[in-house]
């Protein structure tokens, strides 16, 4: 259980983290998503008591980090980019951490075994690959068998096998009832592991919602039609009240909120009008796009706000109630549930989100 209340960090003029309030709950993987420079690492450092907040408060299991007497038993953290002395062997690195928290030495061998580094326990991390370095960091996080685990960009730069391993591990740890808080700038990664989602952009909370909810609200569904008679097709659609948008290869894209019936209706319309169609398909935009739209809109909002155009695109402030979600109606055109439309081939990064093999990797 991690609780943030109005957490703020200011570096000079720049507001790195702006009034963050949310709770990371046990039993699920909570994804902490934001573009590079959104303030994820700063937030995590404040959480660990490494940076002191300008304002606000963050507590682990109700306590400030520096009041934890044996912190590794409460929270394990994988910090950014190997926070390890390259010249100290993996075993000794873990040993000194264990000793500082009164954790028995044998636990070091256990975690080394757990992350598959037993064979290189006596080697210096200087020569470790990125993946081995991440494993060592995770071993350190697991050392105290903590209730809360925090991973900062755990899959950055890993090969598919390593990504798969970390994903499986996180899901497994969450199932044991632990609180898992994992940051990433890749929506696709989150879609595969996280059940809950916290999105920040420019230090501000943009969304705090369940993954399913986010997907429901942000998967943009549209029908793609292509015809040799492009101009006539456009007129036909406009006459019917559709709002076609020019797509690639002379295709038209029509946003839809319907459950897969839009394609049928458009097909019927084309037949009635005697239009030759070369393509008619339902497409779903990737979650990655949805995420980019969400974070990009804050920036836009700031620009529009001064012109008084704010009501047109209400931006989710901090603490969005789950029912309404980050992108309410009117926020993103055409957003809505569309389970009937299966992910089209090559839709994008987040396409595998509802794959039954969730967590199995690609």
């Amino acid at each position: 259980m991690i609780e943030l209340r109005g957490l703020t960090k200011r570096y000079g003029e720049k507001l790195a983290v702006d009034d963050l309030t949310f709770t990371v709950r046990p039993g699920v993987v909570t994804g902490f998503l934001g573009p590079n420079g959104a303030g994820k690492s700063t937030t995590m450092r404040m959480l660990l008591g490494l940076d002191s907040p300008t304002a606000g408060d963050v507590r682990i299991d109700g306590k400030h980090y520096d009041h934890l007497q044996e912190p590794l038993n409460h929270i394990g953290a994988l910090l950014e980019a190997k926070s390890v002395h390259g010249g100290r062997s993996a075993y000794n690195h873990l040993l000194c951490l264990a000793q500082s928290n009164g954790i028995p030495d044998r636990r070091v061998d256990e975690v080394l075994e757990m992350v598959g580094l037993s064979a290189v326990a006596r080697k210096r991390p200087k020569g470790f690959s990125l993946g081995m370095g991440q494993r060592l960091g995770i071993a350190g996080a697991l050392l105290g068998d903590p209730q809360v685990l925090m991973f900062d960009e755990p899959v950055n730069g890993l090969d598919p096998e390593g990504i798969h391993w970390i994903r499986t591990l996180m899901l497994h740890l969450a199932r044991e009832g632990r609180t898992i808080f994992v940051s990433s700038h890749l929506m696709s990664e989150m879609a595969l592991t996280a059940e809950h989602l916290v999105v920040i952009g420019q230090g501000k909370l943009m969304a705090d919602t369940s993954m399913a909810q986010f997907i429901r609200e942000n998967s943009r569904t549209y029908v793609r039609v292509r015809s040799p008679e492009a101009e006539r097709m456009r007129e036909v659609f406009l006459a019917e009240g559709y709002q076609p948008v020019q797509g690639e290869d002379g295709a038209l894209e029509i946003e839809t909120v319907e459950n897969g019936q839009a394609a049928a209706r458009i097909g019927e319309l084309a037949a009635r009008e005697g239009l030759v169609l070369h393509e008619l398909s339902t497409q779903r935009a990737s979650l990655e796009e949805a995420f980019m739209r969400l974070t990009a809109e804050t920036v836009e909002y700031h620009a529009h706000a001064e012109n008084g155009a704010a009501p047109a695109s209400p931006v989710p402030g901090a603490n969005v109630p789950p029912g309404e979600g980050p992108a309410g109606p009117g926020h993103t055109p055409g957003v809505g549930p569309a389970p009937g439309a299966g992910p089209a081939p090559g839709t994008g990064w987040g396409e595998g989100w509802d794959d039954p093999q969730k967590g199995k990797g690609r």
Partner: protein
Amino acid sequence: MSTQQQYQGQVPPQQPGRPSQPQQTGHAQQQAQPQQAQQVPQQQAQQHGWSGQGGGATYTSPIPPRRTHLGNAIVSEWTKIRSVRSTVWTIAIMFALVVGIGLLSALAMSGGQYTGNPLLSSGLFGLMLGQICVITLGVLVITSEYGTGMIRTTLTACPQRGRVLMAKSLVFFVLAFVTTTVACTITALINSALLSDQEIPSYVRNSSLADSVEGGRIVADSGEWLGATVGAGLYVALLGLLSLAVGALLRHSAGAITTMMGVVLLPLLLAMFMRAEALETVRDKLMEYSPLNGLGALFGTPMLPEDSASGWPLLGGLAGVTAVALVVACTLLNKRDV
């Protein structure tokens, strides 16, 4: 409590070629029991308006948490200092310099004429170089953590930052003191063995140096022995501790080592160029309080010929400066972001 069963039943997807997984699974089932603690967090979550999907069963580790104290930090810091090569190298080089140069100079002087310097004073030569190793180690003990990012891991494991600095200081100080004292003692024994039967010129008998001659052999009194062994060890270890504090302040290896080199060498170098009469007082003060003078005085060879100080008062001064530097370092360590 249906969520609990859900957690118990689920086994992670099997991974071929990863023997660690089955072990973890057993771990999970074993620990699915103590989940009473979830009540409070779940209520809180609902208060704040979260849906609570995914359940709220919390995990409790079978490893009993223990209250940690300075002892844990000391054990941890000892593991750290002994498990990096820089420690081994700096101490080995310090040893080689102190004992090696001591032996060479004793061999060169042995059989020659007594120069009038105290019997153990040639130990200073090697130690002047050897102290640079101790300074380097003192700086590296802390700055290597900043350089590698290890400091974040360290402070995550032990958020009581003062405790970390205290443990580092104690471990380093004891290590530096013991190794330097041993090296100096060996050198003193070598000097005493090789130089005590030097030829004694006739003028010595009628001068103040007569005290150090006993039965035709040159001897050192207990004060000189103490100064050249324990005193020198303490002095160099304190200098190393000051380096550690400077390292904690600057958080940069090269910067801190350069600063310490300046502290050790500059006062004497500056004094050498202050030839003007008007600067005489400044020059003498620089000489007197130069760290090298403190060390020289402990070996009975102060920089100023008329100075009769034993070196112990300067050692006390160094201890005071080091204590202040450590307090400042600790205050800043607590305040700064890492």
